[in-house]
């Protein structure tokens, strides 16, 4: 049995867990191809107009899997932690996808941990029973999937990018050294599905590296640090993803070795418009170099390149001034 997983949205958070779970149950996991112009064009054609860019892209990834798999794994992610929500567009996602024609069956379970009494394990059991009647096998698959996820997170906390961490998990690391010295460090704060998708981010992290800047993201920061930093806001945030970004931004802005912060938002993202503003105000109060980038459908890369270049010039200039050159 083949289970398809779209390479988009929460893939960047949970893929190692999902894959291990399905593989332990004897299924074959098929990933959609990396984003290309065609993926985005398909998404734009089939998605409703008012959703944000990454959700449109998700449509393209789902369509890429059509005809190749028996199931598409598409959980309805309502809440992944106590008293916090995932963005409302994720809530409606399975319903929007279901409207598409020619798709295989969807594994569309609800994941809602907003109240403690809802048990994640019931959900796991429901998904697992599609593949086996053996409860013990499901339990074991669940245990090892959690272990893989923890390993993945540990690799990220060491400073690897998701693609690099996945390569380590798969034992596919080449001879190339992973880290080489950079002249400056820059924090890039944004949703993983925007910054790590090199198509819609126009290879943002790669470009920064080419320009001599090491990239630090929210995924490199342990959950505990993120939480304690986000708690510095006068009021608790109830968006899980927003909390991660705010926590990471505040953490990096405190670190003297980080020379600047780039905030990446997708056009049409509601929560980003607010978290971006909160981060910008904080950065400005600290007089830290800050750049706001908005990703959209356009393919012209000049706009992104110009802004990144100017940003790094500003960071270098400021560093040189501080050093008294």
């Amino acid at each position, binding site marked *: 049995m083949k289970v398809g997983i779209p390479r988009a949205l929460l893939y960047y958070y949970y893929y190692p867990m999902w894959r291990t779970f399905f593989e332990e149950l004897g299924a074959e996991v098929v990933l959609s191809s990396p984003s290309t112009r065609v993926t985005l064009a398909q998404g734009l054609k089939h998605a409703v107009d008012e959703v944000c860019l990454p959700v449109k892209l998700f449509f393209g990834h789902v369509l890429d899997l059509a005809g190749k798999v028996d199931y598409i794994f598409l959980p309805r992610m309502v809440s992944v932690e106590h008293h916090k929500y995932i963005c409302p567009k994720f809530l409606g996602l399975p319903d929007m996808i279901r409207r598409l024609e020619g798709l295989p069956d969807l594994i569309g379970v609800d994941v809602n941990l907003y109240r403690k009494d809802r048990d994640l394990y019931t959900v796991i059991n429901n998904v697992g029973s599609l593949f086996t009647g053996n409860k013990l096998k499901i339990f074991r698959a669940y245990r090892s999937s959690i272990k893989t996820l923890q390993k993945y997170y540990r690799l990220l906390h060491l400073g690897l990018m998701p693609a690099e961490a996945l390569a380590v998990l798969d034992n596919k690391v080449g001879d190339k050294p992973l880290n080489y010295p950079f002249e400056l460090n820059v924090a890039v704060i944004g949703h993983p599905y925007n910054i790590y998708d090199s198509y819609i981010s126009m290879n943002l992290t790669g470009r920064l590296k080419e320009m001599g800047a090491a990239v630090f993201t929210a995924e490199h920061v342990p959950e505990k640090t993120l939480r304690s930093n986000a708690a510095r806001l006068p009021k608790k945030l109830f968006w899980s993803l927003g909390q991660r970004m705010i926590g990471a931004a505040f953490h990096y802005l405190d670190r003297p070795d980080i020379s600047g912060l780039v905030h990446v938002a997708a056009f049409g993202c509601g929560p980003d418009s607010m978290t971006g503003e909160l981060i910008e105000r904080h950065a400005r109060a600290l007089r830290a170099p800050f750049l706001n980038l908005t990703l959209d459908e356009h393919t012209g890369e000049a706009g992104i390149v110009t802004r990144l270049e*100017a940003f790094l010039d500003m960071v270098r200039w*400021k560093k040189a001034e501080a050093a008294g050159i």
Partner: protein
Amino acid sequence: MKGYLGIDVGSVSTNLVFLNEGGIVREAIYLRTQGQPIATVQKGLKELNGRLPDGVKVRGAGVTGSGRHLTGVLVGADTVKNEITAHAVASLLLVPGVQTILEIGGQDSKIIILRNGVVTDFAMNTVCAAGTGSFLDQQAARLNIPIEQFGEIALQAESPVRIAGRCAVFAESDMIHKQQMGCGLPDILAGLCEALVRNYLNNVGKGKEILAPVVFQGGVAANVGMAKAFEKALELPVTVPAHFDVMGAVGAALLAREAVARTGVSRFKGFSVADSLFKTGSFECSGCPNMCEVVEVAEQGSVIARWGDRCGKWSEDVGKKEKIS
């Protein structure tokens, strides 16, 4: 005479300046790009060469603007810099102590905040080009007045009308409505200037600390109506420097001076490139589903640069690093 060449190839205008070694602008040329960057640069070089005395030595060349990569290859530039850095460098030379730069060009607008001679913050318009030069151009054409007289007429206004500046299309409908109601032309033009300034300050200048001295530059600074609207909105004096329309080119020349001081030799090919035969073309690569649009530049029949491919298959083939992607 020895000096440095700066070229700024923007969406609307192409500017060339020649700085002497002391950083004084000796010649400045402002041309309309008219969608033909190569021909315009060649025309500008020819004109500049004619204006300069015989035996002049170009010690370095710098390029900036959205056409900088193309032009850099064309003339053999020593620096290829983004517009923000170029504008900041030029302003610092011509208006010592500047703390705020307002720049409005043909299709983009930016604000640059400087403190103690260092860029500390900047912003560019994101997904909207309302209120930039192209819009003023278009409205002047629609009202059948030469763009050069736009500002003068606006200054005659007695009570500027209120126009929505958020969107160029809606601003136009608003203007037409006011015309049909019988408002005078000066009042409408002044109202438009105020609307554009309002939009700029809310959009690009959002949350920025605007302190005097304030410099207003870029092609739109030719419009005295805009300068006056800025003064009214900011309640600060606004300086329009003498070379407001070629500031990017001045900055590029200054950066070239810096680069050549470091490297010792210039890569400038000489004014003879004005007579070389350049051919550009683009093709869609069919190597992968990205279908990148690859641009190719050939000089006298041999390919000197390619860019636009995400993977580097074509651009690296030429052995040049000057590519957009």
